[in-house]
Each structure stands twice: as structure tokens, then as C-alpha cells.
């Protein structure tokens, strides 16, 4: 073998060796990627709500909140290589469409469901039980929890809020037993808290419910307002949506009967539960919304905090306008998505499969030291087998110079514990 031939053979061998080596390296890399891909999972979350149609003024920013937070989770890899596939569909506030959406989501392999309205939550309650599907709705109707294991309210129920608001009212009222009227939506949603509030009165809450008014599409509430004043009513507790409250407040402003200080004699102090308030009320009622008292368990962007700053940053990141970014319905959407993601994160951390059954167990275990602090609420989210109302604390806000400002600290009414 001459030197030239020897050199050629050596070169070919070296080239072949390096080819084999590099192939082996590539194969190993591909294997690693394939392994990683095999391990990365996709979890499906469904949301059916009114993006258009009745109540879409709440549903639209709510859907944006859910979408933005879940996008953020995927992009920032908050669940590692695992992804969330979110299916958001408009049901136009129609229960039959909600049911169809829910069934479609099931066939897609959904592991966590976010629902919206009171009507559809009540209507699909049996489906949720049959499918053993953990559900967080946007409706805080206490009746959602009756004969249900799988529905979890994100914050305290309307009933608990109404009792809390009543407790706040009684605590801040001076001079005898306050006379109160309830102004409610003519539906299961509106009527829900009436009996529970009456039960709180029976349990010792010292106020006199003089009248329960179910409103219509009224253009003029003069008769009702004058009637309430003639019955010495000083407080009107509202549980409906913003539009009728705005008309009521405008009429009260025209008649000059809005109390300028809490419980002012001869005037009316207006208070309302979650869906009566927020920036939409101010948008509709204008200056008539001044001194309106409102209860919710969410933090508001008008009161800066770490949660609200994060919310504004999230909205900005995804190009949302100021109206959506500052909407408490956007906060609400972010928060329910946070609950779903937290349940998934905990299941992963425990090394169990992320499925309906395990996510349900994770929700039930969210209490005590394991309570969840989403920062978008005024208290922690805690659930158990006997407690399906997430955030128990309430915050009272009051409209001052066109924005909602905090009144006092978050609290839990003792009557809520007694009655609910």
C-alpha cells in the first residue's frame, strides 16, 4: 500500500466515521425532541358565553380576560412545555347554544369548563354532574350550588354579597332600624338573594325590608322612588345589571333624592351587588352614579395594586383598549382562567394526570395553606367539599368623582356564615 493510497483510505474512513457520528448525534437530538414532544401535553379548556347578544357588555371583556391570560400562560411557558388549548365560543346568551357548545367541547376532550349565565348554569347542572366536569361560571347565583358537586363559584354568591352589603348598611346606619327596599332583576338571577337576605334579617340582621321591587324596562322611576320615600325607605339594595340601575339613579338625581352622605335622612342611598356596578354603570349613569355603593370581591384598576398593575400590563400586551383593560369583567375573566390554570399546575406538580377527576380534586384541595392567591381579588380562593364559593371576602367601593374608590377593608359578614 503506497502512501497516497493509505492517505486516501484514512481520509475516507475518517469521513465515514464523522458521518456516522454526526448522524448518531442528530438521531439523539431528534430522539430528545421527540421525547420532549411526547411529554409536552395539551390541556383543553372550554368557555361558552355571550360575546354578542344580551349581557355581552359583560361577556365581551370577560372573554378577553380569559383569552389573554391563557395566551400569556402558553407564551410564558407557565406550564412548562405543556400548552392550554382554549376553546371560546359565543352563545349569545342562549342556553340551547351553550349546551351545544358544551357538548362540542366534550368531544374535543375538554378537562375544565368555564360557563357564563345563571340560566345556562342551572340548565346544564345535570350535564356537569353526569360528565363530572369541574365548572367555574360567571354567574354567582347561590342556586347553582344546590344539588351540585362540580360547580365552583369564583367569588361569593350574590346572596352572600347581598347579605354582606346589608351588614355593611346596618353597621353604618345611625338612628333606629333602617328601612330598606330591594330593586331586583325579574329572573332567577335577580330573585336568588331575596329569601337569603330575609333569612339574614330573621337571623338577627337589624333592618326592615319594606319592599322588593322587580323592575321592568322603565323609562321613568318617579312613581317608585316617591313611593319608597313615602314609606321612609332610606336604602335601595340593587341586584340586577347596570342599565336599569343607571335609569333609576338618573331619576333619583333629577328628583334630588340621592343621599350625599351615607344614610342621609329623607334621601335614598343606593347600593348594589357585583353586576350592578363597575365602569359600565358610570358610563351609563354619568354624574348620577356618584355615591353609589358597590360590592364585589375583585380588585379594581382605580385602586392601584400589584394585581391590577399586572392586569393592565396583560391587557396592554395583547392590545386591549382602556375600556376592556379597566373593566372588572376583564378581571373576572382573568381570574377564572387563573383558577383553571392553578388547578392544572397543582395536578402537574403532584405528578397526577391532568384530567377532569384530578382537577376536581385539586379544586377541592384549594383551602387553608393551599388556598390560591390570584392577586386579582381581595382575598384568597378557597374551596372544599362543603364550600364552593371561591373568594369569601367582600370589598365595598363607592363612586367618588367618577371612579370607584375602596371603602374600608375586605370583610366577611357574620350573617353570611349564619345563613349561607
Amino acid at each position, binding site marked *: 500500500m503506497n502512501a497516497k493510497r493509505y492517505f486516501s483510505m484514512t481520509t475516507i474512513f475518517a469521513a465515514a466515521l464523522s458521518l456516522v457520528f454526526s448522524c448518531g448525534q442528530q438521531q439523539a437530538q431528534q430522539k430528545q425532541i421527540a421525547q420532549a414532544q411526547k411529554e409536552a401535553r395539551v390541556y383543553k379548556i372550554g368557555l361558552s358565553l355571550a360575546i*354578542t347578544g344580551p349581557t*355581552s357588555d359583560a361577556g365581551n371583556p370577560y372573554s378577553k380576560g380569559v383569552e389573554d391570560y391563557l395566551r400569556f400562560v402558553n407564551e410564558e411557558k407557565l406550564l412548562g412545555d405543556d400548552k392550554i388549548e382554549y376553546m371560546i365560543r359565543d352563545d349569545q346568551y342562549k342556553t340551547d347554544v351553550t349546551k351545544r357548545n358544551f357538548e362540542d367541547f366534550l368531544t374535543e376532550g375538554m378537562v375544565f369548563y368555564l360557563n357564563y349565565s345563571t340560566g345556562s348554569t342551572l340548565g346544564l347542572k345535570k350535564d356537569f354532574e353526569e360528565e363530572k366536569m369541574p365548572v367555574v361560571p360567571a354567574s354567582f347565583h347561590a342556586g347553582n350550588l344546590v344539588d351540585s358537586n362540580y360547580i365552583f363559584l369564583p367569588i361569593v354568591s350574590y346572596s352572600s354579597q347581598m347579605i354582606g352589603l346589608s351588614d355593611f348598611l346596618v353597621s353604618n346606619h345611625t338612628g333606629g332600624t333602617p328601612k330598606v327596599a330591594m330593586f331586583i332583576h325579574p329572573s332567577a338571577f335577580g330573585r336568588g338573594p331575596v329569601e337569603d337576605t330575609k333569612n339574614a334579617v330573621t337571623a338577627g340582621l337589624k333592618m326592615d325590608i319594606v319592599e322588593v321591587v322587580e323592575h321592568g324596562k322603565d*323609562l*321613568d322611576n*318617579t*312613581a*317608585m322612588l*316617591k313611593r319608597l320615600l313615602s314609606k321612609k325607605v332610606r336604602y335601595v339594595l340593587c341586584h340586577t345589571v347596570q342599565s336599569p340601575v343607571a335609569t333609576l339613579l338618573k331619576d333619583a338625581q333629577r328628583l*334630588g333624592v340621592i343621599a350625599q352622605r351615607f344614610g342621609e335622612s329623607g334621601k335614598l342611598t343606593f347600593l348594589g351587588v357585583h353586576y350592578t356596578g363597575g365602569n359600565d354603570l358610570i358610563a351609563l349613569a354619568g354624574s348620577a352614579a356618584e355615591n353609589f355603593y358597590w360590592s364585589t370581591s375583585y380588585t379594581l384598576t382605580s385602586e392601584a395594586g400589584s394585581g391590577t398593575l399586572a392586569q393592565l400590563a396583560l391587557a396592554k400586551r395583547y392590545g386591549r383598549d382602556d375600556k376592556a383593560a379597566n373593566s372588572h369583567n376583564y378581571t373576572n375573566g382573568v381570574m377564572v382562567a387563573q383558577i383553571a390554570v392553578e388547578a392544572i399546575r397543582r395536578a402537574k406538580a403532584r405528578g397526577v394526570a391532568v384530567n377532569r377527576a384530578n382537577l376536581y380534586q385539586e379544586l377541592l384541595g384549594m383551602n387553608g395553606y393551599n388556598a390560591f392567591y390570584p392577586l386579582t381579588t381581595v382575598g384568597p380562593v378557597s374551596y372544599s367539599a362543603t364550600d364552593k364559593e371561591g373568594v369569601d371576602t367582600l370589598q365595598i367601593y363607592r363612586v367618588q368623582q367618577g371612579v370607584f374608590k375602596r371603602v374600608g377593608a375586605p370583610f366577611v359578614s357574620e350573617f353570611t356564615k349564619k345563613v349561607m
Partner: protein
Amino acid sequence: MSYFFQLVVSGIVVGSIYALSALGFVLIYKSSRVLNIAHGQIIAAGAFITYAFTVFVGVPIILSFFISLVLTFFLAMSVERIFLRRLIGEPIISVIMVTIGLMSILDGLIYLTPFGTENFSFPEFLPKTPISIGGVSISWTQLVGVIITFVLIGGFSWFFKKSTVGISMRAVSDDQLASMSIGISVPRVFGLAWATAGLSAAAAGSIIGNITGLNFDTLHAFGIIVFPVVILGGLDSIAGAIVAGIIMGLIQQFAAGYLDGNWGLNGTADVMPYIILLIILLFKPHGLFGIHEIERV
């Protein structure tokens, strides 16, 4: 006694707005015998146009109001030209079905804008202090609303009674074939009926929007809320719409003022108008001012 008079004033205010909202139904029915189910959507569109020009463009609200009247006039005329013109001579039920479809289309279009899913409020441009006389108060918004309503209704009444076009419209309403035989353009009359209905709807929407705030659900619901007014007044009578509107407004206020909250009653303000409607229709099946057509065979 001031309580009673307050209820009367409130009833007239609400009733006149009902009358203006009902007018759109009457104008279209009067000339074409068509019931426009999409009327509520046109009411909402009129309010939103006024708001958009006032707030987004910065035009003074009074001018925006007139721009809205003009735009809605042409919008409604275009709707008739595009969707309904081809249906002349077709069964009425087909035309009504088209207006139902139109309602969905307008809904969809409005949902594409911020007005579909957000709430707005007109800038406050009238004095906030109400006018109070002897314990009876009326806000400037309400007063201006009532004045606009009566001016428009008066204008329309004159138009139908005295103007050539108005008389042509009445003739078409009576007999389309006979009208055509004397040279009246029936399609043109239909277009004009829709256009004037659009104009009245824009006025009604802007007034309601000033009172309640701008919420699409609330505004388009008025297309249905005023239905009893239209039926009670007689589908083709402008005078009927006024009288029935005010009757309904007064019934609502008196029910809210004297029945609700007493004897365990609640929500009678919403129910009483329908009860009264049923009673009146038992005796006057064509409404208070509706024409009872006698068919000779």
C-alpha cells in the same frame, strides 16, 4: 295631590316617547301594510349615530341629532330599496319574515361596532336642575324629549293630511292598484315610508338614549315594548299612536304609583298595560283608531 300630578307628568313623558317609538311602525304599516320587526334595531342605530357624531367626531349634540335623522332617513330608505323593493306584491308574511332577517343582520352589524357590547352615555348638555312646579318635577332631558316628540308627530300629521306626497302615501295604503292607476309610484311611496319611519326611530332612539344611557339591549327592546301601543292605537293611525302611547304611559305610572308595593302587588306597571290592551281589544278589535275595513264580496 302633587303625587298624582307627578304621576300624570311622568306618564305623559313616558307615553309621548312610546308614541314616537310607535310612530315608525305606524308609518310603514300605513303605506305598505308591513310590520317592521327590525324597528328596535333602527331606534338603536339612530341613537348610536347621534352619539358617534357627538363624541367621536366632536359635532355639537344638536347638530349630531339632525345628522342622525338624515342618515337614518337614508339608511331606512336603502334597507327598503335593497331588501324589500323586490317583495312588492308578495305575500305579507314573506315581507315580515324578511324584516325578521333584517333584524338579525342589523344586530350582527351593530355587534361589530363597540356599541353592540359596550355602554355609553351622552354628554350632559342640558341643565341638571329639573324644572319643579308645586312639587312636580320634570328633567330638561324629558322636557326636550316631549317637545321633540310633539313637534315630529305634529309634522307627520300635517304631512299625511296636507302634502301631496303624504296623501299619495295614504292612497297607496288604501289601494295599491288604484294608486298605480292614477300614476302614483308605489315603490317610491314605500321607500319614503321606510325613510320617514327611520327618521322617527332616530329621534326616539336619541331621546331614549339620553334618558337611559346607551345600551344596545335596552334600546332595541323598545321595538317590542311599544308593540302594545301600536296595537292599541290601531296599526295605521298616527293619532292612535299618540293617544295609545300616552294611555300606556299613564297606566304604567299609576300602576307603579298606586298598585305596586301595596296589597302584595309587584310589577303591575309592566302587566297592567297588557291587561288594559286586552280589555280594549275585546270591544275595539282594530284598536282605538284603527280602520275597520269592510270587504265586499
